[in-house]
């Protein structure tokens, strides 16, 4: 199908890049590439919310953090002290827990990565619905501030709670075994398989989202973005659609958080910070608000550059500058500008 041509290109590009790194001996690039893939999941979800449903979210890093922190906490927190608790015992009987011994011979009891993942996603859904219902009734500045506030609350909770490691975050997060022999982890040996796993998830997410855009729901979202009152008048339950889109994008962010945490082996409070949320918004803006592929390409590019340290200590400043420049000169994103038209606009304004 024509709409999925970019998807085939993506798969092709992913394979080519990996082969290229193997051929040139630069396999260390695979790590930032893998991380960039997971961040891209957040970004395309945000693009759906901002570009299609037209709802800004300045706190999406909060959902990433909820996913990451919960799965990190559950897979590293020793539950032995709570062995007697009926909930823990139930989990044990259902096979949700792992028994083991640490290097001192002390027994420990942890939650299985699958169970932790499921729990994290469940919590994300509940929080997203809980926050979404009141927040999405707001518009403009109020909506922006409310989402910003949400992100800050998550950040503060992560920073202040001993349960979440306070300023140090959580480390020592084990790998996430998906299939026998295939696990999401930072293991050197599984670098290549992790790379393909991450980009495979991205490809699958893009397939789902592109389908959604071209469906009745996608059209309804665009109508809501275009003229909400008129969309409602044509039979679209705008509140419900905005909410479901919000939750979907939140789940995508949480999934990204979960897997990136297992890949990195840990997570810190900065992942929930404002600057991360702003970064995601900047990338969606530069990719073209309602351009899923634009957001993906820009997201991959900018994240890789940032992860490789190309922006040095100006990292945050770069994204701030991107925001301003794009919004001033190319609100449709980089891939939508026409240079002559932009120049004409500048000259006219200055007069």
């Amino acid at each position: 199908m024509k709409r999925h041509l970019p998807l085939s290109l993506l798969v092709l590009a992913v394979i080519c890049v990996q082969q290229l790194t193997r051929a040139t001996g630069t396999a260390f690039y695979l790590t930032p590439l893998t991380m960039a893939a997971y961040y891209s999941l957040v970004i395309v979800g945000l693009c759906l919310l901002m570009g299609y449903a037209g709802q800004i979210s300045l706190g999406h890093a909060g959902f990433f953090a909820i996913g990451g922190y919960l799965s990190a906490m559950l897979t590293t927190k020793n539950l032995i002290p709570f062995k007697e608790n009926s909930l823990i015992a139930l989990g044990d009987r259902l096979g949700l827990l792992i028994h083991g011994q640490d290097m001192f011979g002390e027994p420990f009891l942890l939650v299985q990565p699958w169970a932790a993942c499921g729990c994290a996603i469940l919590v994300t859904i509940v929080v997203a619905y809980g926050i979404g219902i009141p927040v999405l009734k707001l518009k403009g500045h109020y909506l922006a501030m409310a989402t910003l506030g949400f992100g800050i609350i998550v950040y503060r909770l992560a920073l202040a709670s001993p349960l979440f490691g306070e300023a140090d975050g959580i480390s020592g997060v084990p790998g996430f075994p998906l299939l026998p022999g295939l696990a999401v982890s930072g293991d050197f040996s599984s670098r290549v398989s992790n790379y393909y796993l991450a980009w495979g998830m991205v490809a699958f997410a893009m397939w789902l989202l592109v389908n959604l855009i071209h469906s009745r729901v996608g059209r309804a979202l665009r109508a809501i973005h275009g003229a909400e009152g008129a969309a409602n008048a044509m039979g679209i339950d705008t509140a419900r659609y905005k909410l479901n889109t919000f939750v979907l994008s939140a789940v995508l962010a949480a999934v990204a958080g979960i897997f990136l945490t297992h890949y990195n082996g840990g997570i810190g409070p900065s992942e929930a910070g404002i600057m991360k949320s702003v970064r995601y918004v900047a990338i969606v803006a530069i990719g073209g608000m309602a351009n899923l592929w634009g957001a993906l390409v820009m997201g991959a590019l900018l994240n890789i550059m940032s992860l490789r340290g190309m922006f040095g200590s100006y990292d945050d400043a770069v994204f701030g500058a991107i925001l301003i420049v794009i919004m001033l000169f190319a609100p449709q994103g980089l891939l939508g500008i026409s240079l002559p038209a932009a120049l004409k606009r500048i000259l006219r304004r200055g007069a």
Partner: protein
Amino acid sequence: MLLEIKNLFRRFGGLQAVSDVSFSVPQGMIKAVIGPNGAGKTTLFNLISGALPPSAGGIHFKGQPIHGLPPYRIASQGMARTYQNIKLYPGMTALENVMVGRHCRCRAGFLSGMLSLPWSRKEEKASRVAAMELLALLDIADLAEVEATSLAFGQQRAVEFARALATEPELLLLDEPAAGLNIYETAEVARLISKINGQGITVLLVEHDMSLVMDISQEIVVLSFGEKIAEGTPAEIQHNKEVIRIYLGEDDA
């Protein structure tokens, strides 16, 4: 009675925009609401379509109360509207705009959309065909792939019309369908309204163009400063002293 308005009130702070208005629209009729500017006609439409809740009074559609319901519910029950200052969806083609009208008659949701299930794809195709047919009905099929807000005014009007028809309404609310149109275009609109009325759709229209109103309406309601001051056939309204007074002013003789 398809639509019944009973003792409808709407206040904005100290302003009584609609004050104790009552009338009914039987099935199959073309009824017009007229009145000088500021009479409360668009407010009335907003109340009926659910965009505004009434301060007091009741609105019944097909025998069921609809006052206080959100617009999307009223729309799916069979009422559609057009807008005085056109509200098409920017960034979408004419065809896509009309297809949005099909929304309430389709079912594909998030999951079936994301997975591109066969039945949802079939539904999409049917929607597209239905939308194209409506565009053809209004003689703008060739504009299907044009971005809706870049069309000429009269063409945008037509797209909005098609979009409203796409919802398969039983009652169509038209807010000044002839505004900004010339004589020929207005006649075309009149023809169109009569045609869809002939297909069984009840029409309630707000209009300033008296030739259109007198030509096609079977009954007329006259509003002034939010109050109903007259109701009757075109002939009765034309001879109503009160109506003449509010439009033409007092006779100083």
